[in-house]
């Protein structure tokens, strides 16, 4: 048994008929750390989580969670995990309290134990006021908090969160991040999936970037960003006619590849020296007399990460298979 790794996966493959959702991935999550699987829709994130949470069986490969084999010791795995699926799966017809008590009982607690635990969680997740209202009356953020509380009912040693903040407004998202911080401080091992680089960076010690069922990069946020060229400087011009000039200047200063978006009159390039680069760009633009509407330094977007890693945008249409089998 492997105590160092709460999650340990080797050669996971999942095929649905012809479609390959996971094309053989190896990864592990150290006990007591947070790992994010980052990738666009359809990359295989949910499939990986479903296999680890014993909801789906891998076509090939093996995995252990909390030291137990997900294929042959599913019940032992389920006793030790909490899963928050992509849509909050708390029961809308039950109250918040009823949801937690039911899950406690299904985690094999006595009714009294389950009630005590529910009360405790409602307090921790700031839901005491709404405890006896039906979940159907909750806001999206409250529902997610309850969902997180629900995964914590049985003090799981490993927590799986599948896109925990998708569909939340920025405020609810921030709130939820705060809640996740406290979980993490207590030392729960967390594997979460996300489409947002900032979320992965904010929450995770370790990031696994996945695309079309394959791991294409991994490391902590700093390493990844260094690999990906880190910060980007973006210049938005007043006059689109000067874009070629600005592109040339930016290329000179940064020495990096420049992306031009004529639609929003913007040029972007990796800024290897952060703010220093920004100052150099500003100076160069102003001495060339190019009027600037906006000048900023920012993190690469997921799309830029994917362009850097795969040379294809994250949200591109999947390439159709060549119609070899169609010959009749």
């Amino acid at each position: 048994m492997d105590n160092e790794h709460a999650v340990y996966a080797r050669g996971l493959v999942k095929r649905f008929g012809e479609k390959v959702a996971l094309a053989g991935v190896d990864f592990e999550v150290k006990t007591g750390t947070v790992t994010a699987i980052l990738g666009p829709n359809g990359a295989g994130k949910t499939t990986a989580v479903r296999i680890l949470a014993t909801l789906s069986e891998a076509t090939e490969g093996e995995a252990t969670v909390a030291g137990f084999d997900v294929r042959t010791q599913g019940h032992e795995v389920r006793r030790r995990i909490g899963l928050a699926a992509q849509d909050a799966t708390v029961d809308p017809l039950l109250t918040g309290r009823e949801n937690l008590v039911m899950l406690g009982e299904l985690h094999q607690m006595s009714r009294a134990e389950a009630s005590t635990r529910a009360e405790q969680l409602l307090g921790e997740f700031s839901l005491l006021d709404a405890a006896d209202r039906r979940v159907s009356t909750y806001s999206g953020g409250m529902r997610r908090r309850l969902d997180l509380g629900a995964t914590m009912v049985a003090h799981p040693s490993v927590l799986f969160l599948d896109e925990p903040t998708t569909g939340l407004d920025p405020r609810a998202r921030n709130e939820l991040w705060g809640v996740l911080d406290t979980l993490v401080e207590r030392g729960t091992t967390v594997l979460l999936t996300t489409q947002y680089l900032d979320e992965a960076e904010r929450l995770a010690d370790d990031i696994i970037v996945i695309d079309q069922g394959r791991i294409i990069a991994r490391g902590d946020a700093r390493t990844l960003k260094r690999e990906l060229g880190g910060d980007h400087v973006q210049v938005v011009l007043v006059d689109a006619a000067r874009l070629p000039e600005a592109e040339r200047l930016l290329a000179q200063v940064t020495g990096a590849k420049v992306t031009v978006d004529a639609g929003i009159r913007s040029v972007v390039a990796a800024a290897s020296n952060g703010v220093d680069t920004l100052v150099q760009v500003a100076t160069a633009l102003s001495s060339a007399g190019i009027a600037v509407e906006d000048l900023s330094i920012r993190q690469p977007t997921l799309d830029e990460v994917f362009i850097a890693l795969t040379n294809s945008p994250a949200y591109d249409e999947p390439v159709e298979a060549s119609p070899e089998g169609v010959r009749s």
Partner: protein
Amino acid sequence: MTTTRPMIDHAAEPPRSRGLLHDTWVIAKRGLVHMRRQPEQLTDATIQPVMFVLLFAYVFGGAISVPGGGQYREFLMGGIFAQTVVFTAFGVALTLANDRKNQAIDRFRSLPIARGAVLSGHALTNLMKAMLPIILMSLCGLIIGWRIRSGIGDAVLGYGLLMGFSFAMIWVGILLGSAIPSPEGVTGVGFTVLFPLTFMASTFVPTSTMPGILRVIAEWNPVTTLADAARILFGNPNTPTMPGDPWSIAHPIAYTIIWIVGIIVVCAPLAVRSYEKSLEK
């Protein structure tokens, strides 16, 4: 670099399993709360059978006579009992389809619960739900002049037979709910398959009035024999059997019991397999 945090505060060993019955009951309780909080979804078990009793008793009743004599209203009750019991499948299929739609099933499956507890919980809820229309209809029947004219033993057997058939139909419902992906699809199949099935039987009219092939179908339709068996066991008017009647009509109670056992033996394993397959995505 990653930092290893202090060990977790969770209990050293999670609680031991309390068994299938415990888990089944927790899930059945959830189903009962759902029923209580969605009274509009109970119409198939409450308003609908009562409405059928009243409509047929008063609108069609005058035009239909029971061969062998007796009140049509009393004849009618056995039929609507049978129809209502068959519709049990419908409710089960809908609850399953809804659970899958809102991903509740995924949550259950990530819990350390006994294998099969989700299905048996649904089955238990629906068995309790099946009692509701039978009780309501009995009350409604008493008001319009229906009486149990047999002994207590027969009456208990009659109600037992209805519940037994309900239990069998629950497995048909699980099969439907697993095989058909959406609640809308379930409704469609319910109306195009189950509904006619309950009309091609002695539910509302004696089978002797039906033409050729339809009559043969009706005579072997278990809905007919369930209705006939209920009439016999409650001591209500029923079409008298003739020499030359098929075996099903001559022995409705035995024939119905064979169907109950047959449906359970065939459908339960199929339903469990189909349900488990429907979860794998």
